[in-house]
């Protein structure tokens, strides 16, 4: 499989008032196309930092980062336009826009790309159908359950057919049933759209859908096991 993202010897420090925190130390990570990678580790181990760095919203202090989105296009940094085109995000607290209803939340990335209202609504409706939420499409997200909100967030992450979806603790606020639904959705979406998924979680259950399970401890990355 071809490498889609490559982090080489990456380090990141956060400066406190009197001390530094080494969030990442000499981390190397390669994400292949169409694989699901789960990154676990205790709180403060640097999981979210690594996810943000891959997502282009934080910078490495040392080391290198490279994206190869196609044979003809690779880059080292992501601006907003590239994030919009190639990446999708799922957040722990869903990250939905509270003033919008479900379909408008899913359509939001399409709106940023300038699609017409009709087109973006059509695409968003299809995505909501795939996550089983057609019935609540026009409901405000404030009225949805946690599981429903995370499914809306997953639908939104896939709206622009991204090459990578980055999921930060996608199951953290969900009950057992919804954890299973969300993990299945992510796995199925990866297969359907050929997307690479990097998932950060405390939850060991997430490893069940992973092709690879990595662990971060005190800023160091360890490859736990390779799933089949």
């Amino acid at each position: 499989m071809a490498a889609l993202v490559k982090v080489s010897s990456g380090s990141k420090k956060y400066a406190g008032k009197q001390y530094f925190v080494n969030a990442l130390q000499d981390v190397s990570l390669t994400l292949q196309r169409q694989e699901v990678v789960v990154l676990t580790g205790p709180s403060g181990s640097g999981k979210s930092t690594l996810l943000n760095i891959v997502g282009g919203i934080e910078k490495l202090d040392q080391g290198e980062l490279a994206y190869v989105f196609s044979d003809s296009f690779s880059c080292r940094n992501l601006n907003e336009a590239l994030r919009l085109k190639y990446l999708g995000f799922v957040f722990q607290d869903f990250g939905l826009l509270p003033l919008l209803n479900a379909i408008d939340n899913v359509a939001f990335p399409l709106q940023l790309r300038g699609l017409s209202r009709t087109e973006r609504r059509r695409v968003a409706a299809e995505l909501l159908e795939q996550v089983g939420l057609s019935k609540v499409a026009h409901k405000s997200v404030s009225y949805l359950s946690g599981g429903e909100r995370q499914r809306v967030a997953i639908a939104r992450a896939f709206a622009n057919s991204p090459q990578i979806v980055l999921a930060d603790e996608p199951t953290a606020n969900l009950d057992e049933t919804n954890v299973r639904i969300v993990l299945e959705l992510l796995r199925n979406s990866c297969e359907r759209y050929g997307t690479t998924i990097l998932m950060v979680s405390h939850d060991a259950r997430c490893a069940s859908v992973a092709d690879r399970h990595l662990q971060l401890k005190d800023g160091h990355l360890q490859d736990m096991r390779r799933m089949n």
Partner: protein
Amino acid sequence: MISPAIFQQAFHNVTANKRRTIFVLFLIGISVCALLLMNAFVKRVYWGVRESVVRSQTGHLQIMSKKYDQLRNVESSQTLFDPNETLLGELSKIPGVMIVTRRVEFKGLIGNGSQSTVFTGVGVEPREDSTISSFDRVINGRALSSVDQWNIAVGSGLAQGLSVVPGNSVIVTTVMPQGGLNAADFEVVGITQSDSSDYDQHIMKIPLVVAQKLLNTTSASKVVLLLDSTDKTAEVKQAVQKILNRSAPDLIVKDWRELNPQYDKIVALYSRIFGFMAFALVLVSILSIGNVMSMSFLERIREFSVMRTIGMRKSTLVSMLMAEGASLALLASIVGILIAWLITWGIGLAGGIPMPPPPGSNRGFSLLLELSLPGVWQVLWASIFVGIAACVLVAWRAVHLQPAQGLRHA
């Protein structure tokens, strides 16, 4: 290019966040309403000052000899002229001209036998003058009529000074333009009151033909024109000037504004007061809305961070926030305009607000307010500016927010 969808999004945000929207609607709405009412009040004051001088003293336009303008001496024979019927006929045919009438002005002493005082006399054609002086009120007796001969109407201040009432006789003494004194007995038929107490202190009106007899002349000091609308003054003045250039080059025409320079002073004074109050209201609105938007910024840090993480450009975020501010202000302006319209309508139904006499005036008035379309437009644009200006700080903070930092914000 910024997608129109971003503006839809902004409008959606505005209408979806009801609590914030209602609060800001209230803030801007009240300011818009206050600005509109203040604007209507000032416009009404301007109108009152303008029309009271036009319709009780000067008319819209006055034709006089160039010498009159230079000498400022109403008694000089050099300032009199003979407006012939052809000239008067031509003037009355100018579109917008309602009345063309002659006047002769003179000064002198008026006495009741035991006391006397100075006066400014105006010989008028009573029928025409009753229309020109429509803002004057007869507070005792009656107005001059075309059948009156040795009768006069005096201003209320003059009547009070002389202690005369209708039916009393007075002696009027004046200097004739050619020199020499002339005097005659007159009967007071009416006491009039204008909006200006100064004017009422010395004004005395008598029929034109009688004034000419008293002054031993057939000439006039002025030709006064009343128009059907004050807005036509400049246009008619130009037409009059053309006629004078052709047929009476020794005469000049002056409009009510040149004849009443105090009008511009009043306008300048009120404009400054209004401008200062408007500035204060706009400033308070900007600070209040800016404060509300800043509070909402703290609530929306994660929202902005999510948007930026997903791929919203900084410029798009700024446009969206500005559009939110403008949409809020637009909605609030509509609310403010409706409230102001309701208030002015209510005031109209109640017959106006009783106001005390303004400085230099004899009488109070009922204040009726009317919203002007240009005023509404000005306030509408000003409030949209306020809405956008209030969002500048929030927009600045939003675009300088690091998405990763914002996502950690609880």
